[in-house]
């Protein structure tokens, strides 16, 4: 994965959460003050902060819905003798068409037929 593709926006989750909670708390306090004193200044402040809180909440919701699909490097193996196929995580030293571990079915040497990135959700499927 390119380092530019790292899920950087997640870093802002605590900041957004604190900001949203603060805005909601201050707005609520201003509404209470308006109800107690009847001063419209408090109401105006509460409305203004409520607008900012809605915008922050909307941005926060967008941030939380960012889906990062994790991908892992996989090695696809095939036995040239019996055709048995298997998939496992890539190991240092794996090279395309190089010999790998023994075949579980016939005991022959398996060959690396593919090295590729695959999404974690597909880890149980074969090529």
């Amino acid at each position, binding site marked *: 994965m390119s380092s*530019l593709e790292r899920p950087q926006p997640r870093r802002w989750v605590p900041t957004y959460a604190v900001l949203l909670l603060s805005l909601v708390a201050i707005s609520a306090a201003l509404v209470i003050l308006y109800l107690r004193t009847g001063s419209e200044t408090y109401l105006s402040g509460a409305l203004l902060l409520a607008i900012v809180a809605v915008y922050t909440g909307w941005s926060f919701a967008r941030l939380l819905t960012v889906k990062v699909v994790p991908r892992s490097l996989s090695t696809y193996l095939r036995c040239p003798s019996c055709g048995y196929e298997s998939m496992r995580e890539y190991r240092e030293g794996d090279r395309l068409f190089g010999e790998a571990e023994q075949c579980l079915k016939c005991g022959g040497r398996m060959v690396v037929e593919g090295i*590729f990135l695959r999404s974690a959700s597909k880890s149980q499927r074969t090529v």
Partner: protein
Amino acid sequence: MVNGDVGSIVGWLVAIIALSFVMQELQVYRAITEVENYLGILRAARDRALSALREQFRRYRESDSEADLDKRIYRLVEVKLIPPTDLDPYGIVKKLKHILMVGEESIEREVSLAAPKAAAHEVKNLVVMAEIARALNEVYKQLNHYYLIARRFKSLWLLMQLNAVMPFIMEEVRAIEGAVEAFRKALPIGDSAGPLVATFLMRKYGVEHFFEPAKDTVVAKVTAKGKDLYVVKAKGPGGTTGHYDDAVEWVFQRAKPSVIVTVDAALKYEGEPSGIVAHGYGVAIGGVGVEKYGIEEVASRHSVPLYAVLIKMSESEALSIMTEEIYRGVREAVSIVEEIIEKAPEGSTILLIGVGNTVGVPQ
């Protein structure tokens, strides 16, 4: 409030004019901040590529002075290839090819000297890593140049233009940066799809003869479905793209292929799935066009049809480690090429070219 008196109206006018200036200053400031952020990301990407290159060089060197290594890396990153003049375009392809060959050989020699312990294929990967660092360095320096000029003249329009193109440039940078990891580990990238198809066919039908008629390019003679098949690909597993035009010329001097099939990665549109296979007519090959010209020249001289098999992917997928979707596309492309071979007339010869960077893909 405007009460109607002259003083108040003048006051409001002054306030509105002042506000428009302040707004423009704020817009300039905002554009500067955004462009600076993008430049920061670009600089970081360039520095990461440089440090990866330095690390990789250290693996293939005796522990000598760091200053010498830095000097060599600087020379590799700052190297320039100057295209020939097109005032008189006659023979420009030949001139361009000559310049590219000289550049390629010189850079390879330079890399070999800087990394004496590297094997031939490792030198190729180091050359590509140096190219990546050079590309990122060039992009960063150019954009920084425009940014500094725009800032010096406080030109909002220049800054806005720069800001507008930044997302597209970032896409390209992301694509280029994705290649660093693949070349460091010598793993196939999306662009290796063409050579991988060639290798699958070579291995499936068994190579009768192997030739290396051009620099970094191999030709394998195979018998597939009762027909002669010449498979051309760059020599792997080092990161190189070979010289297909010279290899095609060489094949035509020895055989009479009735069809030329090129298999290559092709850019998909946003929204299209990756790894789908498309057909086409013509030579599927990217780059500056020298090799495309050479193959088209040979094909038209011998009136040979040109078929193309394209495996679709995004720009960043083409340069990053191969994905499962593209790998599936490769397997599908192998079947399609087999169909083409099957449909060819009995006794005919087919020439297949697996176009692309062959990093991590042996013969």
